[in-house]
């Protein structure tokens, strides 16, 4: 509605801006719909986002010029929320169509998610312009049932890092199986025990909290929050370890060596994390070369107060860990997720040594485990004149993965 000086009112222009933003967003979705999708799941996510955005656009279109300021502001805030929520996801979906991705991996990873997370789960695999792999928040409230797994763009075609996707899929499994609730009582008890057992750390934090007018409950909550997040990370590591076997350990070492990164409140310390991983491997009967993590550098927390909270949380995590480990492995066994079989890994390794793919239908974890073993026995294949051999190893693994899909599809109708 024009203002008295002939210009449109700020309210009218604000509403017009929101309409233009949603229209631009929808135009971008239409562009994306024309992309070459390697798998249907990305298209489905796009359809859901489009429906949500279209609904918002209709609300904006229907808003009368007489609407009051508060209503306009509410709609503008909704627009902001939608655009900020979905823009990243649109980029993720767009990058999922890039041919740099190892599209062959989608089939076995999706089958893993269907088994371990939800039979109706959908998977979008993409590549991100981030150094750390698979960091995208993949359990999105507004795309329920979708697992989003992102690898670092320069290595998104590298099968050897795919085991780290096991960790990220673990986050979905953590949520879908309600693992947090299953260990909550044990954790609360462990936190109480740790607080009693560590009076120096407890009193240090309490002193700071008292200065801010806070109480013991705030310390308990801080410890609990840190411990539960740490346990989730440990669960995800154990999940990846169970599913991908040795290849998870090699991929982990490849990306995180030599440890020592600054420590946030929601991760175990670098050495604790490796310790849990090695203990988990031992529980699964796996042998890990001791030198792999011998010189692993521990991480350091950023502030003294954090250090005390973390120390108490670490003690609680350590107390609950054995329960979590057993729960994780029992859960995966219960839903029928297989562990890599040594005989199959050996067979694939034999094929890779002869520079041919496996033709017998090995699983993705078996193939990538054999790939890691071959790479390590070949000395890492990092020299210039070994680049071709390294590239062919990846090709052979990806072809093996594709052949397994081929066999599975054909045999399903045999």
């Amino acid at each position: 509605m024009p203002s008295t000086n002939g210009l449109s009112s700020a309210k009218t222009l604000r509403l017009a801006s929101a309409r233009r933003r949603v229209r631009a967003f929808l135009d971008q979705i239409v562009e994306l719909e024309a992309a070459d999708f390697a798998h249907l799941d990305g298209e489905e996510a796009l359809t859901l986002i489009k429906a949500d955005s279209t609904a918002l656009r209709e609300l904006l279109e229907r808003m009368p010029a007489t609407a009051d300021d508060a209503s306009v502001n509410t709609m503008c805030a909704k627009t902001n929320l939608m655009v900020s929520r979905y823009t990243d996801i649109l980029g993720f979906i767009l990058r999922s169509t890039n041919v740099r991705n190892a599209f062959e991996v989608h089939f076995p990873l999706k089958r893993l998610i269907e088994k371990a997370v939800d039979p109706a789960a959908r998977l979008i695999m993409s590549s991100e312009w981030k150094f750390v792999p698979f960091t995208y928040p993949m359990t999105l409230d507004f795309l329920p049932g979708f697992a989003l797994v992102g690898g670092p763009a320069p290595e998104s075609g590298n099968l050897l890092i795919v085991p780290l996707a096991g960790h990220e899929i673990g986050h979905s499994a953590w949520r879908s199986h309600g693992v947090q609730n299953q260990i909550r009582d044990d954790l609360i008890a462990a936190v109480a025990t740790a607080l009693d057992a560590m009076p120096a750390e407890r009193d240090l934090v309490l002193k700071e909290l008292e200065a801010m007018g806070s109480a013991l409950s705030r310390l308990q909550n801080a410890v609990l929050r840190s411990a539960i997040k740490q346990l989730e990370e440990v669960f995800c590591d154990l999940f990846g370890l169970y599913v991908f076997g040795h290849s998870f350990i090699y991929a982990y070492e490849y990306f995180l060596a030599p440890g020592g990164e600054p420590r946030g409140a929601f991760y175990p310390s670098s050495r604790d994390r490796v310790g849990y991983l090695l203990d988990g491997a031992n529980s699964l009967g796996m042998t890990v070369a001791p030198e792999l993590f011998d010189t692993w550098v521990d991480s350091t927390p950023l502030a003294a107060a954090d250090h005390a909270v973390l120390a108490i949380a670490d003690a609680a995590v350590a107390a609950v860990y054995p329960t979590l480990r057993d729960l994780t492995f029992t859960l995966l066994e219960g839903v029928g997720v297989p562990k890599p079989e040594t005989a199959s890994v050996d067979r694939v390794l034999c094929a890779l040594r002869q520079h041919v793919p496996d033709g017998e239908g090995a699983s993705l974890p078996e193939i990538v485990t054999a790939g890691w073993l071959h790479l390590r026995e070949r000395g890492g294949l990092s020299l210039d004149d070994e680049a071709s051999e390294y590239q062919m190893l990846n090709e052979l693994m990806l072809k093996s993965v594709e052949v397994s899909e081929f066999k599975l599809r054909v045999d399903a109708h045999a």
Partner: protein
Amino acid sequence: MLSAVEIADALEGKDGIERLTVVPWPERATLVEKGETSIDLRLGRWFRSFKQTRTPSVSLVGRRPGEVGDPTETSRTKQHFVPFGSNYVLHPGRFVLGATLEWLRLPANLSGYVTGKSSLGRHGLVIETAAGIHPQFSGCLTLELANVGEVPLEIYPGMPICQVFLHRTTPGEERQPDRFSGRRKPMLSPPKADAIFERLVDPKPGV
């Protein structure tokens, strides 16, 4: 040329040298039962089409060392991945590179020839023009797919697309192919430099 039984024996390594590798494996019983002197191969999921708007022309002779080359495989072409169940539509007059689903490795005593399938050729689909496979080749075969017919053709990953006839060769002192050149996607290799050609085009021969 190898018979069906000889192909089956070669796949099982009964030849005494190395075994013939075709992955996914063709079933021995199917091979022998069909009794054909070739192995059928299927179409893979990766394709490589040419970016016409970015390529004024391409020289088909190899460049001398140090000479500025043609645009690379990446800059001249676009890759496509087609999942099982979907198709690639090849329009009349168009050309695309595909690859076999199967990974082949020929032993030192076998060579082969790739040909299309008459049932597809009759619809206008030309499969392969560079048909020889040398001993010890390893990788998926790149296929040159052209529609010389008059209607658009749908080609599907997983469909039988070509066949390979195999011949015995006497292993000798031939140049060994690059052991690590095998790829799962269609390849577009640059032409190799040719010494005779270089001499022919030298503006001042002998100077």
